[in-house]
């Protein structure tokens, strides 16, 4: 009887020690779900969701503090992927949020006074320039987040919609004209 209790207690102790060690040894620093959510988000860092960047929004979703339909640049496809990942119902983009056509910021170089405010605002370091020198935007890495528009004291930045070209053109979804049958042939 006593030996049985001792054996069970010893096993319990040993397993407890192993579990405790594993807890320390294999500790997951961050919630891995945040990474998965962050991977789906479009990384424009635009803040249209109300959070200061994509990662904070991902963290908020992971903590169930934010809805999945707050990201306009991610569009419907993004919401669907989030719904799939989190096992929740798909819902359309939140009130008053509509995806805008993909754009790039352009600095009017005649007006730029070289104040560097937009450089500080750019979340992806896509603006080149220095104090009292004209600034310019590296279009290839601009995410179109519009965060540089507000700080500009002379309003010399505007957004330009990226138009389709032969390289980025996509085949259209096939649609067929519906013709009414000519009279008398039916």
């Amino acid at each position: 009887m006593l030996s049985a209790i001792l054996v069970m207690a010893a096993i319990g102790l040993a397993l407890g020690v192993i579990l405790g060690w594993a807890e320390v040894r294999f500790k997951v620093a961050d919630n891995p779900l945040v990474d998965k959510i962050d991977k789906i988000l479009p990384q424009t860092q635009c803040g249209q969701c109300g959070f200061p960047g994509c990662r904070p929004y991902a963290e908020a979703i992971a903590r169930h503090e934010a809805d999945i339909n707050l990201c306009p640049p991610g569009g419907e496809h993004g919401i669907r992927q989030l719904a799939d990942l989190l096992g929740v119902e798909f819902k359309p983009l939140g009130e008053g949020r509509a995806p805008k056509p993909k754009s790039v910021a352009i600095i009017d170089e005649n007006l730029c006074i070289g104040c560097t405010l937009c450089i500080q605002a750019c979340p992806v370091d896509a603006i080149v320039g220095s104090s009292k020198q004209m600034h310019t935007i590296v279009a290839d890495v601009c995410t179109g987040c519009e965060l540089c528009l507000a700080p500009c004291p002379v309003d010399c930045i505007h957004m330009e919609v990226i138009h389709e070209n032969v390289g980025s053109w996509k085949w259209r979804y096939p649609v067929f004209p519906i013709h009414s049958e000519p009279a008398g042939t039916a």
Partner: protein
Amino acid sequence: MTQPIYSFPGGLHPADHKAESNGRPIAAAPLVPRYQVPLRQHAGQPAKAIVHAGDTVLRGQLIAIPDGRISAAVHAPTSGRVVAVGPHPVAHPSGLADLSVVIEADGRDEAVAMMPLAWRDMDPAELREHLADMGLVGLGGAVFPSHVKLAPGPLAIDTLILNGAECEPWITCDDRLMRERAAEVMRGAEIMRHLLGARELLVGIEDNKPEAVAAMQAACAGGNARVVVVPTRYPSGGAKQLVQLLTGLEVPTGKLSTDIGIQVFNVATAYALQRAVELGEPLISRIVTVTGHVARPGNYEVRLGTPIAELIALAGGELPGASGQLIGGPLMGFDLDTPQAPVTKGVNCIIITSADLFPPRPRAMPCTRCGLCAQACPVRLQPYEMYLYARAKDLDKARAYNLADCIECGCCSYVCPSHIPLVDYYRFAKSELAAREREQHAAELARERHDFHSERLEREKREKAERLGRKASERLEAGAVAADDPEAARKKALLEAAVERARKAKEAAAPPANTDHLSPAQQAEIEAIEARRAQAGLGGGSAPAPDEQPDTVAEKT
């Protein structure tokens, strides 16, 4: 020695319509007054123009350089003056305009100095360097830059296949090329073999071109290349299908033929390579079939940049009842938006359509899952499943059915008894998936840059805090020394007293030099100033300390 012929699944036997255009020899198209040369005539990045409006150019002169690894150079098709570099119509299914160099021909057709190469004595690497700026691309339709395909990959190329199958109906440009210029084609193929170090060289030709087969066999006689006649069945001219026909090997999904040691080139590409090496002439012309509802169907050797309308006029013009133009064959081609678009490296055939030759496709009916499309598919896909998912825009599911392996040959659409334009759905789904991939790539880049940005801000903050901390501790240290060392405190007090004494002595000993012989008015003014200074607590007339100066300046700015 006979070469065994293997088979590939599926395929079609459409009416081949080759006789309309293969009876006449290749005719050289005369010069036209104006050429539009697009900068994107190849797969990959468009070339970068190096000429401007107003420049004069010569035939064969480099006018645009490759931009990146997967790109090809563009050359002037004739001598003349560049009148514009801007968007102009191009032969593309989108109908969009693209950046082009417009050249007004001067009619003299003067050429730049062209350098023929003695390739047999040259090292392949050296020869490849010469080829990079020749503008060579695959002329079978895929327009992939040839210098990339001729570079050695991770796996040695054992077999080089020359594609002369020309399986699509109506097109006969490769047929005529092989009949008339077989020796040049084979010399080009030998250069390719030299570059790739391939052991075997096979030429695949469909059995509906007996004259081309005979000419190529004659050109191969004595050499160690072999012509393999394959049965006529669409799409035997697809690169992967031809590999399967000639070697019995199937290129695995998601891989290239080079991954199994085989490289495939079109016969026209071999011909262009021969011209580039043995004559030093860059790719500035190609052979184009003009056929269909036109007065004189045939094959024309055309300078790149020639407006298609001019070429149609050369073929006698469209016959009454023409309804449009098709670029490429009827199975894989697309409708041309405007005949003002020019002939480019990828344009192998122009078919003038009419209601009789190409009756409108009957209205699409629902899919009955009859399975005919699956039987016709040369890649053994399940077209009806891919169609359902592409139609429902469930792209991930469509991809799971190996949409990426679809070669868009059009066999499924051709056999569909419900007349569903299946390939249109696959093209839609494929380009959506490609766009999604581009976006994903952009997101990765943005994430990387944002992470770096955040880290930089964090680092700057940390460094500033450290700097301030260091300063503060230095000040503290100085104060602490004074406080707890009586000897130091005594010395400091002595020093301060000495400085004070020196200042007072200086004040007393040296009155300002220009105060002699003052008028009473000046004297009064000085006294008033001194009074103000005393009031402001400045005492003796010392200038502001030099180390204060930058701060005040800094504050002003």
